[in-house]
C-alpha cells in the first residue's frame, strides 16, 4: 500500500475552544499503481482535508497516515526525525486553481522550480520539462513563453506539468475541472487518463461532476460530514438509497434512463453506460 489511513481524526483549531472536526475515524488504503479514483461529497464534507493528509501537508489529530512506509502522526514533525520532502515528491498535490500559483518569468522556470526544490539538477529538470510539457498537450515552444500570457486552460496545464516534473508516483488533483466547459473538462480528464494509463500512476480527483465519476472512475470515495461513507465502484454507488442524504447528484445517463423507464412503463435489464447503450435499449421497446 502506498498510503494507509488508520483511524484518522482531524480537528481544525478555533479560538473559541470549539474545534471543528473535519475528519472522523477515516480508514482507507490507496494503491501506488493502477487506480483512477474520484473523491466526492458536498462542500465542507472534508474532501480537501483528506487529500492534504496524503502528502503530510497536515497531520492527523489522532490516528496515523502511513505514506510509503513512513508513519505520520500528530507529533511526527516535532520529533524532527522524519523528512517530509521525499513524501511530497512522491505524492503530487495539485490545488484548486493551480493557475494562480504560477509566478516565474517563463513556463520553463515555473516547471523546473518544483524538481529543483527537491534537489534535482537543473540540467535534468530541464530535460524533464521538455517531456512533461508534451504530456499535458502543449508544444515545447511554450517553455519560452511567459505563463501570464496564456489562457486559463493553458495555465492549468502548465501548473500540472510542474507537478508531473517532480515525477510523483501518485497524482492528487483538487477540483481540476471546476468552472471549465464540457470540452475543456473532457480534454483535461483525457489528459489525466493518459497519465494514469501511460505512466501507470494512481490518480485521485476531487470533483462535483457525477458524469465524470460515472464515466472515468474505477473507484469512488464519498465523504459526508467528515466520514468516509462509501468506498467502492461507481456503478453500485448510484443505486444506493443514501445517495440523496449525501447531497450528491445522479449522473445524467442514469437520470434519463430512470425517467424513460417510468414514462414508457418498462424495466431495462441493465443500466446503460452511454447514450448509445440507451439507444440500443430503447430500440427494443418501441
Amino acid at each position, binding site marked *: 500500500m502506498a498510503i494507509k489511513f488508520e483511524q484518522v481524526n482531524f480537528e481544525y483549531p478555533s479560538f473559541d475552544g470549539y474545534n471543528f472536526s473535519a475528519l472522523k475515524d477515516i480508514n482507507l488504503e490507496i494503491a501506488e499503481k493502477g487506480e483512477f479514483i474520484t473523491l466526492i461529497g458536498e*462542500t465542507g464534507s472534508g474532501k480537501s482535508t483528506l487529500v492534504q493528509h496524503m502528502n503530510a501537508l497536515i497531520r492527523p489529530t489522532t490516528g496515523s497516515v502511513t505514506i510509503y512506509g513512513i508513519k505520520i502522526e500528530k507529533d511526527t514533525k516535532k520529533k524532527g526525525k522524519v523528512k517530509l520532502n521525499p513524501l511530497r515528491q512522491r505524492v503530487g498535490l495539485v490545488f484548486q486553481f493551480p493557475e494562480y500559483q504560477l509566478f516565474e518569468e517563463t513556463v520553463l522556470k515555473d516547471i523546473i522550480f518544483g524538481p529543483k526544490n527537491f534537489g534535482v539538477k537543473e540540467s535534468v529538470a530541464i530535460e524533464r520539462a521538455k517531456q512533461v510539457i508534451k504530456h499535458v498537450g502543449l508544444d515545447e515552444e511554450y517553455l519560452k513563453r511567459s505563463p501570464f500570457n496564456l489562457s486559463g486552460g493553458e495555465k492549468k496545464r502548465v501548473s500540472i506539468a510542474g507537478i508531473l516534473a517532480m515525477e510523483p508516483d501518485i497524482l492528487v488533483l483538487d477540483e481540476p475541472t471546476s*468552472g471549465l*466547459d*464540457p*470540452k*475543456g473538462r473532457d480534454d483535461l480528464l483525457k489528459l489525466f487518463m493518459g497519465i494514469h494509463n501511460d505512466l501507470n500512476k494512481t490518480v485521485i480527483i476531487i470533483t462535483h461532476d457525477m458524469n465524470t465519476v460515472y464515466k472515468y472512475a474505477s473507484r469512488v470515495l464519498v465523504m459526508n460530514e467528515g466520514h468516509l461513507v462509501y468506498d467502492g465502484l461507481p456503478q453500485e454507488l448510484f443505486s444506493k438509497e443514501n445517495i440523496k442524504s449525501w*447531497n450528491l447528484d445522479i449522473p445524467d445517463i442514469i437520470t*434519463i434512463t430512470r425517467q424513460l423507464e417510468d414514462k414508457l412503463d418498462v424495466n431495462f435489464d441493465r443500466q446503460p453506460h452511454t*447514450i448509445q447503450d440507451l439507444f440500443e435499449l430503447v*430500440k427494443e421497446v418501441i
Partner: protein
Amino acid sequence: MNIIEIKDLSFSYQDEIDALSNVTLSVKKGEWVSILGHNGSGKSTLSKLIIGLLKADSGEIKVDGVILNEESVHDIRRKIGIVFQNPDNQFVGVTVEDDIAFGMENLCFEQSDIIDKIKEYAEKVSMSEYLKKEPHALSGGQKQRVAIAGILAMKTDIIIFDEATSMLDPKGRESIMNYIKEINKAGVTVITITHDMKEAVLSDRIIILKEGRVIACGDTNDILNDKETLNSSNLELLLPLKLQYLLDEANLSNDKVKDILWQLSLNK
C-alpha cells in the same frame, strides 16, 4: 419593451482576433434570457461590455433607452447588477453584513436604511444567521447568495449571472437556480451566462454565441428544435435530445417517445 438593445457590437483584446464581432441582440423588460456558449465564445466579454467594464471597438449598447458611454456608465451601472463565476473573487466585505452593505454604500444609501435592508435581503436569501460570519466560514453557494442579496438590495432592474453556478456543488447550484427563478418572477430582468444547456432551458429565450458571433437567438423551444445549429455550436447536448437525434437517424421515432424526450429536455 426592450431594456437592453445591442447593435453591431465588436470588441477585441490587444492584437487578437475579435472576441466579439457584430453582435446584435435585445432583451425585453422582465424577461429571462440565457447566453449560451463554450469557453472562449465571448459570453463573458459581452457581459463586461454591457456593464461598461470593457469599452467596445464599435457598435452600440442601449440600456433602458440610454446609450452606454463615459457619461452614462455610472447611471447604467445602477440599473445592472452582476454575479460573477468565482465566489471568492467578489466577496469584498470583512463579514456577510459588510458585503451586503457594500453596494448600497457606493450608491450613498442612508445608514439607517442600509441596516434595515441588510436584514431584509439577508433573509430573502436565507443568510440571516450568518450576518457576522467571515467569508472563510461560508461555502461557495452561501457566498453567491450573499452577492445576490447585495445586488437585490440595490434594486437594480437587471441582474446578470455570469456562470454564477459553475463552481458550486449540486446543492449550491440548485439553491442559486431557485433564487434566479424567484427574482425573475418578482419582475427583475435576468440574463444568465452559461455553458450548461440544462440551466439554459429554464429561461424564456436562448442566445447562442460561438467564436464571438450570435449563431442562434430565439424562444427556448425553437432553439431546442434547431438540430443543425445545436450540433454546430460545440455545446454538450442534453441527453434526451441526443437520444432523439439517434432515433431520428434510425427512423425509429414515434410521437409518444418524441413527446416524452421533449418534456425531459425541458427539465419537466
